[in-house]
C-alpha cells in the first residue's frame, strides 16, 4: 500500500481526498482545449495540444492543465500534466496549493504569469494563504519557482531557432504582502525572499559550478483616488547576499549591486468646458537593481542581480497594435532602466478621438572604458560605471536611449471606422567599443629604458622597452529610426457583413555608426629608420617570383569549398551580408585591383584595392600616417539592393516597408484576410532562398514577388464555443514583444498553421 501511495504521489492522493467533496457538493465542471499545428518549408514545425480542466463548487476550485507537444511552437516539449492548482475560498480566507501566479501592487516585487507567446512562465509551485477583508488584505506565499529561459550568453544547448530554453533559474521563495484601505487612500507593504541556486564558473578550476545566493526585497506602495485625480507610487529595495556556507573563493569575487526600483503614475481627467472628456496620464519608472554595461546588457546568466524573474514591473511603454510599430519596441530591462511616458487623449468635436503619446527611456548609467596598458588590450579593457542615480533618461548612446512620439486620430464617418496614426521612433539597440593594441616604437613616459649617459632621461638612441598600448578605440553603435504610418478602415456593410482594410507604411533607417579615436599615433614599421612613414609595399609573394599569380578567389569561394569554417565567417564577411562585397578579402592574381581569379592580396587598409604600402597600421584608411585624435566618423546601413548590371550589393540608407491587409467577414461565422508585406531592400546577413508557393505563384501574375510575404488567413466560428484559425503562405520573421520581453521569431516560409480552440 505504501508503495502504491509512493507511486501515485502526494498530488494524486490529494485529488482522491478532494474528489468526494465535489461529488457531494454542487459541481461545476468545464474545460478548454487548444490545438496548434504548423509546418513550413524552412523547417519551422510544431505540434501542440493544451487541455485545461476546471472543477469547482462553492468553496473549491481546481485547475489541471495538460500539454502534449513535440515540439511546441516555443519552449520545452511536455507530455503529461503541466500545471495544477486547488483553490479554497471561504469568507475572507483563500488558500491555494499548486502552481500559483501572484501579483502584488504593480509587480515591482512580484508579478507572475504564464505567457506562452514569449515562453515566460515565472509562477511558483507551492502554497498561498490570503485574508481579504474590506479594510485590508494579507497574503503569505511559499514555494519553488523553476523558470526556463533562453540565453545567447549561456553555453548550453543553444538551438538555431532560439525556440528551446537552455537555462533554468531555480528559486526557493517565501514572502508576504499587506494592503490597507482607508477611504480614497490605500497603502501596501511587501517582503519577499528568494534563495537562488545560480550557475557560475569556478574561478580556480574554470569548471561549471553553482552558488547559493539570497535575494531580499522590501517594498512600499500607496495610491490615492480623489475626484478627477488619481495617483499611484511604488518603491522596492533589493539586497543580494551570498549564503554563509559558500566557499571563500566565491565570497572574494561576490560583488552584487544592491539597489531600488521606483514606479509612479498620475491620471488627471479634465472636466472644464473646453477640455471635457480629455485625460492626461503620466508614468515614470526608475529601475536600479543592477548596473549592466553595454556588452552584458542582457546577460542574466552572469548577473546575480538580474535574476529576480518574478519581478516584472510596468514597462512604461505603449503597446501598439500596428505590426511595424510593435517591431520597434525595445526589450525592457526590468533591472536597469529609467524612463517616462506621457499620454493625452480626448474627443475632438464629433470627428473622433485624438491621442498624443510620448515615451522615452534609457539605461541608468553612462559607461566608459578603462584600458590599462597590456599585452592584450582587448581582453584587459573593462567597463567603468558609477552607482549614481539619474532621474531622467540619458541621451548618450552608451545608455541605449529610446524615444517615440505617437499621434493618432480615430473615429467614424458614417459606417466607416477610421484610424490614422503617425509614429516617430528612435533607438540605439546596441553599443560596442573595440580596441587595437600594439607597440608604437616610441618611448613613452612610463617605459623602461637603458640610460647610457646616466642623465635619468631617455635620449634618442637609447634602447627602451616598448610596451603594448591601446592605439585605437573604435566605438560602434547600432541605430534605428523610423517614420511609421498605420491606418485602418473598417466598413460595416450591414446584415453581418464587414470589410477591413489595413495599410501600414514605414520608412526605416537602421545600421551602424562608427566613431573612432586614436589613443596614440599610428604604428608603422620604420624600415629605413628615418622616423617617417615611406611608401613600401608588402605582398604575399607565394612563389617568390615577384609577380602576382595563382588563382584568385573570394572568401566566399573559399568558404564554399570548405577552406573557411562557418565560425570564422565573421572575420571575412565584414559587412555580414553573406556575399562578397567590395573591400572584403580576395586574392588579386593579376594585380589589376579587381577580383577575377588570382593570388592572395592582404588588403591591409581595407579599401579593397592593392596599394603600394608598407606595414602601416593605417587606422583611418587614408593611406597616410596620422597623429592621435579623432579620425573617423562614418555610418554603414543595414540595407542594400542588388545592382542589376554588376550583381553586386549597393547600400541603401532607408528601407521602405508596406503592409496591406484586406479582409472580409460575415458575423458571426467567418472572416477571411489576405496580408501582403513588402520591403524595398535586402538586409545584410545570410540570405535564405524563399520557396514560391502556389498562392505566391498566383499573386505573381498581379504583383512582383521580390521581397514580399503573402499569407491568407481564415477564421471560422464553428459554434460559439469552437473556433478554427487557418493560415497558409509566408510570414516575415521579426521581433515580437509581450510584457516587455522580446523574442525573435523565425520567418515562416511556405507553410500552413492551424489552431483549433474549444471551450466545453
Amino acid at each position, binding site marked *: 500500500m505504501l508503495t502504491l501511495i509512493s*507511486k*501515485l*504521489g502526494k498530488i*494524486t492522493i490529494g485529488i482522491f481526498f478532494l474528489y468526494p467533496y*465535489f*461529488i457531494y457538493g454542487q*459541481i*461545476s*465542471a*468545464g*474545460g478548454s482545449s487548444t490545438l496548434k499545428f504548423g509546418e513550413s518549408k524552412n523547417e519551422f514545425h510544431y505540434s501542440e495540444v493544451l487541455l485545461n*480542466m*476546471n*472543477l*469547482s463548487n462553492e468553496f473549491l*476550485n481546481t485547475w489541471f492543465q495538460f500539454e502534449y507537444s513535440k515540439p511546441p511552437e516555443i519552449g520545452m516539449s511536455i507530455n*503529461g*500534466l503541466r500545471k495544477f492548482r486547488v483553490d479554497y475560498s471561504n469568507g475572507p480566507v*483563500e488558500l491555494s496549493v499548486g502552481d500559483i501566479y501572484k*501579483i502584488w501592487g*504593480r509587480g515591482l516585487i512580484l*508579478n*507572475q504569469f*504564464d505567457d506562452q507567446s514569449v515562453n515566460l512562465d515565472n509562477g511558483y509551485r507551492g502554497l498561498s494563504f490570503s485574508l*481579504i477583508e474590506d479594510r485590508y*488584505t494579507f497574503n503569505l506565499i511559499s514555494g519553488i519557482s523553476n523558470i526556463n529561459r533562453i540565453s545567447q550568453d549561456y553555453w548550453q544547448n543553444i538551438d538555431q531557432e532560439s525556440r528551446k530554453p537552455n537555462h533554468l533559474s531555480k528559486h526557493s521563495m517565501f514572502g508576504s504582502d499587506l494592503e490597507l*484601505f482607508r477611504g480614497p487612500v*490605500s497603502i501596501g507593504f511587501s517582503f519577499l525572499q528568494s534563495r537562488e541556486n545560480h550557475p557560475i564558473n569556478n574561478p580556480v578550476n574554470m569548471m561549471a559550478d553553482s552558488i547559493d545566493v539570497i535575494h531580499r526585497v522590501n517594498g512600499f506602495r500607496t495610491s490615492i483616488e480623489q475626484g478627477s485625480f488619481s495617483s*499611484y507610487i511604488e518603491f522596492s529595495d533589493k539586497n543580494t547576499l551570498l549564503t554563509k556556507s559558500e566557499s571563500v573563493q566565491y565570497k572574494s569575487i561576490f560583488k552584487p549591486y544592491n539597489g531600488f526600483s521606483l514606479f509612479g503614475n498620475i491620471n488627471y481627467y479634465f472636466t472644464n468646458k473646453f477640455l471635457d*472628456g480629455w*485625460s492626461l*496620464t503620466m*508614468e515614470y519608472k526608475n529601475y536600479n537593481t543592477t548596473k549592466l554595461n553595454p556588452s552584458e546588457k542582457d546577460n542574466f546568466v552572469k548577473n546575480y542581480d538580474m535574476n529576480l524573474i518574478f519581478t*516584472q*514591473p*510596468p514597462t512604461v511603454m*505603449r*503597446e*501598439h497594435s500596428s505590426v511595424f510599430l510593435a517591431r520597434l519596441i525595445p526589450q525592457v530591462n526590468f533591472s536597469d532602466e529609467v524612463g517616462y511616458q506621457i499620454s493625452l*487623449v480626448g*474627443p475632438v468635436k464629433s470627428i473622433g*478621438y485624438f*491621442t498624443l503619446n510620448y515615451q522615452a527611456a534609457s539605461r541608468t548609467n553612462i559607461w566608459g572604458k578603462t584600458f590599462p596598458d597590456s599585452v592584450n588590450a582587448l581582453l584587459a579593457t573593462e567597463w567603468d560605471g558609477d552607482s549614481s542615480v539619474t532621474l531622467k533618461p540619458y541621451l548618450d548612446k552608451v545608455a541605449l536611449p529610446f524615444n517615440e512620439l505617437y499621434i*493618432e486620430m*480615430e*473615429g*467614424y464617418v458614417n459606417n466607416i471606422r477610421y484610424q490614422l*496614426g503617425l509614429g516617430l521612433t528612435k533607438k540605439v539597440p546596441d553599443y560596442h567599443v573595440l580596441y587595437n593594441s600594439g607597440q608604437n616604437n616610441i618611448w613613452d613616459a612610463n617605459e623602461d629604458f637603458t640610460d647610457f649617459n646616466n642623465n635619468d632621461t631617455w635620449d634618442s638612441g637609447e634602447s627602451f622597452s616598448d610596451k603594448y598600448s591601446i592605439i585605437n578605440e573604435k566605438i560602434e553603435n547600432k541605430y534605428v529610426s523610423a517614420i511609421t504610418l498605420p491606418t485602418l478602415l*473598417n466598413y460595416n456593410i450591414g*446584415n453581418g457583413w*464587414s470589410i477591413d482594410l489595413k495599410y501600414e507604411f514605414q520608412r526605416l533607417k537602421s545600421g551602424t555608426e562608427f566613431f573612432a579615436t586614436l589613443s596614440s599615433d599610428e604604428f608603422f614599421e620604420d624600415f629605413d629608420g628615418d622616423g617617417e612613414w615611406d611608401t613600401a609595399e608588402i605582398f604575399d609573394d607565394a612563389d617568390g617570383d615577384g609577380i602576382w599569380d595563382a588563382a584568385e578567389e573570394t572568401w566566399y569561394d573559399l568558404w564554399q569549398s570548405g577552406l573557411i569554417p562557418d565560425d570564422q565567417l565573421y572575420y571575412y564577411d565584414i559587412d555580414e551580408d553573406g556575399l562578397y562585397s567590395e573591400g572584403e578579402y580576395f586574392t588579386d592574381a593579376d594585380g589589376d585591383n579587381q577580383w577575377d581569379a588570382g593570388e592572395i592580396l592582404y588588403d591591409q587598409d581595407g579599401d579593397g584595392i592593392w596599394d603600394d604600402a608598407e606595414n602601416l597600421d593605417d587606422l583611418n584608411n587614408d593611406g597616410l600616417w596620422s597623429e592621435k585624435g579623432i579620425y573617423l566618423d562614418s555610418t554603414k546601413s543595414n540595407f542594400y539592393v542588388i545592382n542589376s548590371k554588376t550583381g553586386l550589393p549597393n547600400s541603401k540608407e532607408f528601407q521602405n516597408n508596406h503592409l496591406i491587409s484586406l479582409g472580409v*467577414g*460575415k*458575423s*458571426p461565422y467567418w472572416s477571411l484576410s489576405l496580408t501582403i508585406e513588402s520591403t524595398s531592400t535586402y538586409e545584410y546577413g545570410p540570405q535564405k532562398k524563399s520557396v514560391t508557393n502556389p498562392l505566391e505563384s498566383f499573386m505573381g501574375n498581379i504583383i512582383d514577388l521580390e521581397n514580399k510575404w503573402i499569407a491568407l488567413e481564415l*477564421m471560422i466560428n464553428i459554434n*460559439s464555443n469552437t473556433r478554427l484559425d487557418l493560415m497558409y503562405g509566408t510570414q516575415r520573421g521579426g521581433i515580437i514583444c509581450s510584457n*516587455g520581453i522580446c523574442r525573435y521569431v523565425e520567418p515562416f516560409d511556405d507553410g500552413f498553421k492551424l489552431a483549433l*480552440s474549444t*471551450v466545453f
Partner: protein
Amino acid sequence: MKNSLLSKIVIVLFLISFVFSQEKIPNLRLKMINGKYAKLHDFLKDGPMIIDFWATWCEPCKKQMKYLNIFNNHFKQSGFKVLAVNTDTPKSMSKVKSYVRTKKFEFEVAVDPNSQIKKKMKVLQMPTTILVDQSGEIIFRHQGYLPGDEHDILKEIYDLLDKTEISYEKLNLNKNNNKQLKTGADVDF
C-alpha cells in the same frame, strides 16, 4: 510513468464529474478598478449579467465595448448588468482608468493583470463574452468579435430575459448605434 498514471486518474475523474455537473461560474474574488475586492456572485444579486474579457491593446474588444455599454444602460432597470474584466498587464494598467473614463462607460470594471480570472473562466480568445443567468449558470459564450455580433448577443439577452420572465423594454440597436457613432469613438491606448 507516475505522471502518466496521474494524468489518467485526473482525466477519468474529470469525465465522471463532467457528467454530473452544470456549467456555472465559480465565485471568484475580483479586484475592481478602484482597488477594492468583490466576489463574482455579488454581481448576480439583481439579475443576469454579461462578463466581458477585454484589453486596451485589443481592437475588436474596443469595437464591442460600446455595445456592451448600451446593453448595460438599457437593461439595468431589469437588473441586468455588464462586468468588464480587463486583462492588461501592469504595463497598461494606468491607461485602463483613463480609457473607461474618457469613453464614459458606466459598467463595472475589474482588473486581472496576470490572467488568473481569465484562466479560471476558460477564456481563450479576446474578447470573450459570457452571458450568465442569475443562478450563475453560463447561458451563452462568444469568442472574438466581428461587426454584427452585437445583434447575436442582444438576441441571447432577450431570450434569457424572456425565459426568466424578467420584464424589459426592447432595444433599437441601430438607433442607439447611430447616436453612439455621433458622440463616441474607439481610442487606441
